[in-house]
């Protein structure tokens, strides 16, 4: 039944980039998608695999500040550049970013699996557009699928994070 038998170890080429502010050297062949290099080789698993074909946005990271679908971005494209993941967008000492705080006040997540990607897309949107309209939100967020259907809460959280809406308190919820 077994065709190959021995577990073999091969060394791949090294990939070098800045991951959440720290320089990393990862043992990954150049074609390997950034997603898998970061999850399996660098050991940061906050970024999720959803579809593998840049259709769902679960794997969204920032490459030099721009959102990319890391499942379809070869690690070679990150060479020497800055990669930011969900683990890298909060402040020091575990402080939450404004976007993350809004995600809490609006109680956005259900299963939570897509939310890393949602937050990375929203963070990029708000950096470039501090007061997005509904159309702006649609355009920036329609690449991120949420199967639990939290879209209306994501929209509200983006407006809270951008100061267009007041955050809800637990009593108001």
């Amino acid at each position, binding site marked *: *039944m*077994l*065709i*190959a038998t*021995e*577990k*073999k170890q*091969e060394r*791949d080429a090294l990939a070098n980039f800045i991951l959440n502010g720290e320089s990393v050297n990862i043992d*990954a*062949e150049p074609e*390997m*998608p950034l997603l*898998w290099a970061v999850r*399996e080789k660098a*050991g940061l*698993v*906050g970024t*999720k*695999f*959803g579809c*593998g*074909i840049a*259709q*769902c946005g*679960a794997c969204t990271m920032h490459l030099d500040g721009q959102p990319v679908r890391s499942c379809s971005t070869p690690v070679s494209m990150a060479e020497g550049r800055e990669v930011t*993941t*969900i*683990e890298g967008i909060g402040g020091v000492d575990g402080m*939450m970013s404004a976007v*993350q705080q809004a*995600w*809490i006040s609006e*109680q*956005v*997540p*259900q*299963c*939570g*699996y*897509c*939310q*890393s990607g949602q*937050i990375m897309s929203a963070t990029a949107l708000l950096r470039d557009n501090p007061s997005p309209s509904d159309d702006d939100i*649609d355009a920036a*967020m329609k*690449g*991120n*699928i*949420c*199967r*639990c*259907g*939290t*879209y*209306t809460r*994501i*929209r509200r959280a983006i407006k809270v994070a951008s100061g267009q809406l007041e955050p809800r308190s*637990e009593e108001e*919820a």
Partner: protein
Amino acid sequence: MNDLTPGEKERSKLAKWSRRGFIGAGVLAGGGLLIGIGVRPGNPIGKLAPKVAGGAGEQLVNSWVKIDTNNIITAIVPHCEMGQGAHSVLAQMLADELDADWDKVRVQQAPTDGSYVVTDTARMFVAPFTMNAADWIEPTWNGLFTQVARMADAMLTGGSSSIRTTGQHSMRIAGAAARGMLVGAAADEWGVPAGEITTENSTLFHKASGKSASYAEFATAAADQPMDQTPALKTPDQYKLMGKSKARTDIPAKINGTAEFGIDAVPEGLDLSYAAIVRPPVPGTSVVSMDSARAKSMKGVLQILNMETFVAVVADSYWQAQQAANTIGIEWSKSASPIKTMDDQYAAFAAALDEAGETGGEEAAKKGDAQSTLGSAAKTIKAEYKAPYLAHSPMEPINCTAHVADGKCDIWASTQVPLMARSGVAETLGFDAENVTVHHPYLGGAFGRRLGVDEMTLAARVAQATGYPVKVIWSREEDTQKALYRCADMARMRAGLDGDGKLVAFDHVFTQRHDPAEACVPAIYNIANTSVRHAPADLHLPFQAWRSVDHSQQGFFIESFIDEAAHEAGADPLEYRMEMLKGSPRHVAVLKKVREISDWGGETPKGHAKGVAMVESFGTIVAEVIEVDMTSGKPKLVNAWAVCDAGYVMNPDGFRNQIEGGIVFGLTAAMYGELELVDGAIKQSNFHDYKMLRMDETPNIEVAIINSGDVPVGGAGEPGLPPAAPAFANAIYAATGKRLRTLPIAKQFA
């Protein structure tokens, strides 16, 4: 408040958690109290331990609360957290009865152990909706159902059941009983009557003497107190946490990347390899031959396994494994199924319906004489409806990590049924269940897909073959095309209207009946003559319960056809339903409220129209109004309003989030959901052709709650879904006069 489920910081802790370590003494290491619900009166928890381990007269413990010396209270929750918020709400219910300080309450996922069968959930599946709360906690019944649950390995999460079964009948009792034991211990120590002791914020008070103490101070002594098996529970006016929108405890970890899902498992000390799999494109077929020459030579590839019913490629990374798997040429055996296309499938349904005719098939419900009333009715209408196969498509792809060594197997998986996974894996490997350990972190969505154990048994076989730990990840394509599905179905309905247009006879025949059994019956309406018949027909694709199960297609069939009857009668569809709800005040109130919040009958912009539908499912009544904009010639969803009566909602914001999700899930299926067959294999493969509703396509959603009280608490996860598709289709009819009797909708306006 912190959540102690696995992802937060110490991944390995749960794996090491041992039930015996706690139960053995009833007192926690370093002092503290552990309480479970013993169903045998007079059995303090410490003495239950040997019985739980097995033996004559065995009774089980089905949920737990522990109190440590720092006054931290931990609810040990037997249900999984898949996005429905059950971990938080179950803790909320326990903490309320315990008068606990919510800021010092934590949640812990119960380990995969026979002691954590969810007795009440199992009972609901056996005898649904027939018993009130008092019956539920009757000890004999509990014991019996515990046995049933244990036999069925029922540690499951599904059926919108966690709050209304485990919450209502285990967590609350555990909390109230714990409070009673703490009060008893303080009364003994202080020498005062227990009735004079009050509790608040995890503190005991005796007003007359001015004494007070934290729960922690009496936790150890409380363990020696007798446990009240039927403690008095709070009434809604006494609730402090129940009924409040407490923030969910799992959310902080889900927004900073630290929440651990099954796919994230990196077991400590294990050098993981990764596998991609190729399963048969047509169900029931197997590998005849394969050409893996190219795959074998690819970088990182460790092993290629021909397991007959699937092929696995094991590599240093998942990506390498998947790349190699994509190059393998496999010849599959011929399928015995005569069904090659959806036309074939629908022809098989039609044949079964033809055979049943106007009176045949298995009787599902009967009231009055529908057949003769149809014969004499002033007007009759009939229609044939169809619903396609659907995939569950949780965002977390199906995966399982397995390690088989020294006669033992460890499994890490996102699953709704950890105990069934344990037995399934044990059976597959020929092991005793005791030698299989199932670790189950958060689920990245489930919707019924994770009620199966296919990915666990498959991964166990791979890990047994390799001898080293392997994480098996299914590509999105594998899960879309080769998994388990919401069934397709076809229904024929007839309605008889009297001279006033009143619906006096209803006949309904369909081919698929799974759960809940009552989903096919329009029982909420007062129709004098009803006949509901099931004409079974074979499915080409394997069935798996899909969010709201039979209600997902039956809601569309029945509520669309009721709409047809209303239009045939020349009546307003909402008022037509209202007329049929006389004598059902809860339903009337729900429909009135949705009429109000949706401004039903009010002005709408040109090209816009509203549709209504109402379904009671999983104990909750939900009416929805959907507003569509047809000005472009294609349907655009504008607004959705839902009104729900679940009796009493434990966490309103969490409940609303579930209903919002159910609506989006239902509208997604209605707009796009469809799996087609090509030569017996599924055509759609990933999100580009199996589309999901996205941010820009999702309507505004408003959810209102009615707490009618004094009825068994209803569910949240599923009931929002069934009215969504018919309300959407009914809105399109209102806008265009085009009646949609098949789904999905978008392609009918392409």
